[in-house]
């Protein structure tokens, strides 16, 4: 989190409209290198729309936006190559093996065969999964699957990885082990961008941005947000924001 490196995500006045409906209204924020940034909001707050723009999947209506140094207007392909993505709902193919998944996603992310071979070896040894190389994903416990899915999402060493509700519903020990891996990754300089509407997950982020009706209504560390709203936990903060009890 050195102050000298430019932000990995730099958003100035991002607006996205669908006809007369303004889904995202003049968002401005920065995310630093190696930061774990939580992006929160109720259904319909504009989270997904904003994230789609950041991933290069949809063009903004207006605004200046760079992701990993690339302009989302003119360098969409480079943006896509600089990011990783993982969702709890869909992450790996269950009916093929661990190694086949690595090879598949490595290929999609544009790695050479040699790179895939090398990085697969490193990845499996780091997770202690060497012996499960040829096991079907379906046979692995949920916790292992998640760690593997995350490691595969960063196999091309992106500047930033987007996680969509990565641990909603899992047991707290598995969750903490999974977040260990996230913190470790952030230490290596990869920025982690988490979208979720589960507040227990939000508590693990370095900094949070809360959206409501297309706008940013709060942005700070979980600790300071709780202080600011006089709340016990993030859930209470979120409810107070949603009901505009400021």
């Amino acid at each position, binding site marked *: 989190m050195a102050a000298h490196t430019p932000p990995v995500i730099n958003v100035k006045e991002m607006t996205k409209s669908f006809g007369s409906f303004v889904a995202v209204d003049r968002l401005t924020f920065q995310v630093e290198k190696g930061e774990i940034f939580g992006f929160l909001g109720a259904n319909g707050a504009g989270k997904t729309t904003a994230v789609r723009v950041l991933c290069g999947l949809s063009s903004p209506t207006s605004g200046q936006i760079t992701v990993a140094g690339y302009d989302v207007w003119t360098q969409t392909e480079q943006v896509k190559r600089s990011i990783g993505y993982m969702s709890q709902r869909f992450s790996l193919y269950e009916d093929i093996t661990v190694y086949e998944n690595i090879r598949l996603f490595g290929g999609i992310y544009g790695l050479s065969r040699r790179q895939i071979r090398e990085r697969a070896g490193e990845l499996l040894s780091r997770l202690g999964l060497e012996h499960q190389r040829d096991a079907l994903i379906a046979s692995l416990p949920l916790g292992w699957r998640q760690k593997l899915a995350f490691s595969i999402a960063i196999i091309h060493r992106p500047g930033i990885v987007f996680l969509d509700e990565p641990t909603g519903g899992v047991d707290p020990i598995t969750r903490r082990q999974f977040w260990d891996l996230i913190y470790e990754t952030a230490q290596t300089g990869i920025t982690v961008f988490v979208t979720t509407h589960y507040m227990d997950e939000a508590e693990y982020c370095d900094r949070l941005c809360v959206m409501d009706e297309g706008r940013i209504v709060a942005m700070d560390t979980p600790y300071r947000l709780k202080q600011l709203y006089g709340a016990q936990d993030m*859930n209470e903060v979120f409810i107070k924001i949603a009901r505009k009890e400021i």
Partner: protein
Amino acid sequence: MEFLEVIRVSRSFGPVNALKEVSFSVNRGELFGLIGPDGAGKTTLFRIIASLFLPDEGKILVKGYNVVKDYKQVRRITGYMPGRFSLYHDLTVEENLSFYATVFGTTLKDSAAYIHRVYSPLKPFRKRLAGKLSGGMKQKLALSCALIHRPEFLLLDEPTTGVDAVSRKEFWEMLEELRNMGVTILVSTPYMDEAGQCDRVALIDHGKLLQTGSPAEIVHNFSAKLYAIRGRNLYALLGRLRMSPEVKYAFMFGREIHLVFYRVPGRPARWLENLSGSPQGTFSIEPLDPGMEDCFVELMGENHPVDGKENI
């Protein structure tokens, strides 16, 4: 008075023991939460209580009726909302309600007063297809359907999963009102932070009950002392903490480390200075009130051979 009694219930699916001698009871008029992660056995237990599955062993009584032998009586007094949205997508809101009313031999009109609180926000959308509703509205419709035969007992399987925080809050407020009307409610959730909304909860994991009590009792029973460490460069400190013999476990939690000691040192701040080799004021350490998730981790640790030093 005990309204629901679950007595040593076990159920296996092939080699998987989904429930292992689960026992607890719910008092009449209580809002009782079953809290546990995905795969804990919550849905299996609910299906047995709803008389849709048979237990391998054990017995369940709902208002004195045995869910196996007296399933007809049980179904008459129970409203069951399954985990997956199981209404008809191609019927309107109103058609779904009329359908369930007819199945239970009643009418929408007869139950109007009973479901009013839950149904009124949906009324403007009564001609809309159920498949076109938002998550929060689907959830209200499913609850309205579960209430259509004016049950004394509500069985709600993960009603708040996949619903945003504001709708979840509204939903819990509705449950509280139903409880105040005298309905006994058993509700399950994977979200630890929802435990506080219940009168009493049971924590469940891997088919076993870990603990039962009011949320305050469970937090009060948390045997260890939890501390929060704040400062810069915490990740580097984490490794040292985990190697220290005094530390039971430590983990990152945003810009804090949460830590549990085997034995709390006399002066934690001094202990931390020595351990980190950093001057005074680099890190702060303060006691922290445990949350439900901390309690769950502690209880899971007692039940599993979890290596709390390296992996947590």
